[in-house]
């Protein structure tokens, strides 16, 4: 615990220091980054310790706020979330130190670093807080810090809009959380989590719904996700990496924590979670497929992955509900493992996208291409990230999805009809998500990094410096390691899962042992794959040795010199799928087709708005504002009328109260 607070203090001091050093960008930047890295590294030590030994450390200080107490506690669950939070924050800080350097002249760099450290502090406190008020304060600090980071380039209109939408969304979500915590603390009288008495099932249901909405807004569940595709592209890339990689996970954390508090789940909770997860997953990846902006695409993929995580939680909850330990363990282990994995590969992808953005000056996919030759490191790491997020073996993304699949199959095997239905939904959903994700990332990687440069932007691309490269490499290596060492990794989830499912630790251990043996086989198969590939490489070398290997233009059915404009664009690549799902996507196409014998200029422009925003939120807000502006005549400036109000109020009150 002392180390944890030590890290906290380092972050705080470093943040303020860089704020004060703001006039000298270099100093501010290095101060901020250094303190972020150091603080995170210090604070992550207890997290690892607790995760390994499963002991809970807590400390409760007096706090001079009504019903507030500074009650923090690190249990395995918190530790499990702390590790990705701190790790990714540290890596992203290394990256950001270089990434922000282009703003040197224009900006006071102390401010972003101050808020960056504040964001990290907020996330740390959120996962360790055990008091409602403390949690909410930490939660809002986190949200505000991230808001200020999102609006880092506040001169740009689009950034302002993004910030505004984000702030409103998160604030409304928080409103639900406030009610949640108050209701939670109602019987107890104190808002400490450990003081919550067992509650009636109806109250628990209400609380669950509140938690789903409140935390789901932050996590980005499908109807509530509207802020995500705005905020992530607007923020500086290392910030979007942290936000998308770990900040939205605090929503998941909150949900899981709520589940641990609320007691035994009825069946409808599981179905709700599974439904939300499937919808978020499929729609998320669909919308990602239809995007033209790299970071916006990644943002929608966060929605998708949150969906997968939620499916995992749903399956686990189903296991608890059907009291089938195997199912519970598989579901929760898969979901939580995916939290970590997604943090790694999504962080990697956002950082890679940031490098592309920074060196080419555009995030528009159809303007890029062929830059893997100019930025090999970024290319390789981004490839690894794409493979991981598409859930391809032997990388980490596959492992967690694999566990959730297994859970679903087990449910399909054992359970009754409704279990089969949910299994069906999960399997079909995951399969579809997997296929679409593969399509989406072949598009993203293929069009951005491969082929010819599609514009001058892409031609001027060059590799990032050491700071950026190293952070990319670290994360890529983690993707591989987490995949290959998965048999060991899942074992460490024992404490967490038993904490969530309140199953005896030993049982969870045995379940996880079987899981890890299965994963062992997966690793063996992966090794076979590796061996074959190596063998084939050698074989190919042998076969090609002494034969002529020539370079030529791409075969294009007899065109003379294929220009880069003739390449397949991302839009056209995704078009079959977007057409297939046009029911949800509602893509607007504006076409001016080629006409005549000698066709002139002809264009195709597609744009895919978010359905929830387009068909739910905008109309709702329009309606409200128009309804309210209908009342504005009430105060139209006539003194006489105002006095009349007074008179009427007085007399109505007199007559009403003296009746």
């Amino acid at each position, binding site marked *: 615990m002392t180390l944890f607070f030590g890290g906290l203090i380092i972050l705080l001091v470093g943040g303020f220091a860089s704020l004060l050093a703001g006039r000298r960008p270099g100093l501010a930047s290095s101060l901020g980054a250094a303190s972020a890295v150091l603080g995170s590294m210090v604070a992550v030590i207890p997290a690892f310790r607790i995760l390994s030994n499963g002991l809970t450390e807590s400390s409760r200080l007096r706090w001079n706020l*009504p019903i507030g107490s500074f009650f923090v506690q690190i249990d395995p669950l918190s530790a499990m979330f702390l590790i990705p939070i701190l790790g990714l924050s540290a890596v992203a800080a290394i990256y950001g130190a270089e990434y922000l350097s282009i703003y040197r002249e224009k900006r006071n760099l102390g401010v972003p670093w101050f808020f960056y450290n504040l964001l990290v502090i907020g996330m740390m406190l959120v996962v360790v807080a055990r008091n409602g008020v403390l949690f909410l304060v930490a939660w809002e600090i986190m949200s505000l810090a991230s808001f200020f980071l999102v609006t880092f380039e506040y001169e740009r209109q689009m950034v302002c809009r993004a910030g505004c939408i984000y702030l409103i969304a998160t604030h409304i979500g928080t409103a639900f959380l*406030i009610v949640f915590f108050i209701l939670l603390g109602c019987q107890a009288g104190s808002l400490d989590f450990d003081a919550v008495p067992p509650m009636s099932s109806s109250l628990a249901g209400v609380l669950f719904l509140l938690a789903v909405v409140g935390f789901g807004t932050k996590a980005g569940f499908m109807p509530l996700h509207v802020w995500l595709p705005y905020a992530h592209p607007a923020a500086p890339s290392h910030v979007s990496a942290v936000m998308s990689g770990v900040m939205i996970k605090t929503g998941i954390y909150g949900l899981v924590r709520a589940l641990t508090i609320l007691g035994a789940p009825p069946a409808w909770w599981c179905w709700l979670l599974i439904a939300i997860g499937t919808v978020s997953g499929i729609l998320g990846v669909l919308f990602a497929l239809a995007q033209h902006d790299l970071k916006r695409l990644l943002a929608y993929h966060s929605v998708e992955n949150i969906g997968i995580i939620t499916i995992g939680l749903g399956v686990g909850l189903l296991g608890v509900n059907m009291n089938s330990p195997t199912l519970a363990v598989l579901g929760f282990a898969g979901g939580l493992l995916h939290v970590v994995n997604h943090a790694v590969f999504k962080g990697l992808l956002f950082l890679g996208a940031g490098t592309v953005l920074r060196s080419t000056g555009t995030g528009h996919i159809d303007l890029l291409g062929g830059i893997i030759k100019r930025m090999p490191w970024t290319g390789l790491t981004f490839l690894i990230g794409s493979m991981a997020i598409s859930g391809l073996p032997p990388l980490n993304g596959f492992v967690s999805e694999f566990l959730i699949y297994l859970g679903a199959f087990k449910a399909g095997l054992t359970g009754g009809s409704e279990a089969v239905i949910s299994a069906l939904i999960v399997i079909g959903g995951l399969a579809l998500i997997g296929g679409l994700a593969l399509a989406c990332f072949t598009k993203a990687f293929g069009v951005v990094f491969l082929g010819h440069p599609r514009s001058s932007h892409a031609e001027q691309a060059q590799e990032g410096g050491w700071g950026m490269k190293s952070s990319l490499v670290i994360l890529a290596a983690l993707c591989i390691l987490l995949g290959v060492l998965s048999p060991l990794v899942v074992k460490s989830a024992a404490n967490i899962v038993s904490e969530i499912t309140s199953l005896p630790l030993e049982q969870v251990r045995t379940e996880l042992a079987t899981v890890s043996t299965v994963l062992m086989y997966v690793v063996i198969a992966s090794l076979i794959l590796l061996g074959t590939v190596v063998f084939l490489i050698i074989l190919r070398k042998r076969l090609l040795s002494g034969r002529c290997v020539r370079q030529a233009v791409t075969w294009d059915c007899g065109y003379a010199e294929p220009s880069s404009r003739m390449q397949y664009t991302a839009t056209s690549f995704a078009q079959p799928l977007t057409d297939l799902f046009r029911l949800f996507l509602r893509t607007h196409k504006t076409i001016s087709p080629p006409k005549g014998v000698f066709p002139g200029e002809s264009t195709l422009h597609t744009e895919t708005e978010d359905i929830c925003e387009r068909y739910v939120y905008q109309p709702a807000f329009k309606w409200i504002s128009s309804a*309210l502006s209908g009342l504005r005549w009430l105060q139209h400036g006539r*003194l006489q009328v105002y006095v009349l109000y*007074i008179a009427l109020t007085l007399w109505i*009150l007199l007559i009403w109260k003296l009746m």
Partner: protein
Amino acid sequence: MIRALLLIPAVAAVLSLVIRNALLRRIILVLTAIGHTAMTIAAWHTDPAPLLDGWLMLDKPGLLFLTITSILFLACSLYAFGYLAGEAGKRKQDFEEGVLFTNAPGAVFCACLELFLATMTLVTVSRHIGLLWVAMEATTLASAPLIYFHRHHRSLEATWKYLLICSVGIALALLGNFFMAIAASKPGSEGTAIVVDILIRKGQTLNIPWLKAAFLFFLVGYGTKMGLAPLHTWLPDAHSESPSVISALLSGALLNCAFLGILRSYQICAAAGQSEFCRDLLVLFGLMSIGWATVFILGQTDYKRMLAYSSVEHVGILALGVGIGAGATFGAMLHAVNHSLTKAMLFMAAGNILAVYKTKTTTEVRGVLRVLPVTGVLWIAGFIAITGMPPFGMFVSEFTLLRAMIEQGRIGIAVAFLAMLALIFVGMSVAFLNMAQGKGEKELHLNGKSDSSDKSESVFAVFPPMLLGALTLMLGLYIPTAVNELLHGVASAIGGY
């Protein structure tokens, strides 16, 4: 000590009427504020001796509101020190319709300001509700010239409405006084002085119908002054047309004083066992005010009016809190403090913005963060604070209120409250963020302000709001024990905890 509290500003007022030197007047103004604050702090340590056989006495509610007033006045006087230096008596162009106008003479301004302080102090210390009434009416009269500082017709209109509406309201409150006396008078026996303590002591023997009628009149009368919808109608005009420093005082201090008037009568009714009756009314008016504010904040095009309506919202929250009772009372008192600090801070920031951009139209102001860095930060911070987000104090108070509502099972009210707050948040965030962010050059040129002369932010313009902001931030993270005790004392004095 109470004598000193009353005399310092009064004497200062007389002085600044006779003194010719403008600088000296301003110095006196600041000195008055400092002296007053010093006396207030002293009153914290040793509670002062009652005067006029207990008509003038400083009980806990009085002390709370006196402190708020005093701190605000200190900040405002500092702000005004810089403000008046800029607003020397030359004829100026009105930036909305381009007509020329002069300002009221500085002497009148300073004198009225100090008188205003004196009268507000009298409100906080007087226990005789008749005297309270006198003081309350006096505050109206002292502040009317302040609102008419910029002598053009809009401010005149605002002043006229303020005068008439408040006077009418206060007159009704006077009738409330008499009713209270009737309620207190025993058949045959000699009449009793309507001093709060005596009335509370007589408690059960009061004549209920008259008491109820009295409370109704107090509610309507002082509610007009406090700005409870639909009696608040003077408030947006006055706040938007008066100089920002005055708006800060009006909404930070004056509204609270009026609220004190209602609280006194509420105390008496509670002593007579009529607290239910009063609290329902307070809840009703609170919700009405918040709702009314919601309607007019959404899509409000004038940022000073928006702040004014937000004041309506927050007095509504105060009333609601006291109406809910129990734990909410504490919340309401804390909210009063937070609202005063935050709103004053915001009005001062708005004043700085107004000085540079020369417009009160929200859409014509962009990029405050770049043009006026400090003010921009204050503006954003104030926005966060006023919408009740951590780590600012208002979060704590609103949270306490909500908690009390839900614990009493008044879910409907809680939901309505949250919904309206959310809508208000949407309205305010759009306006505030768009003002703070963006480039801003275009807007500056558009409003014919490209010279960097008055873009520089003077210490007097930014330090006072910074101070207030720091205070409310502190209240959000850590409530000092003394303050906590005082707030709880007040809460228990008006029937909560």
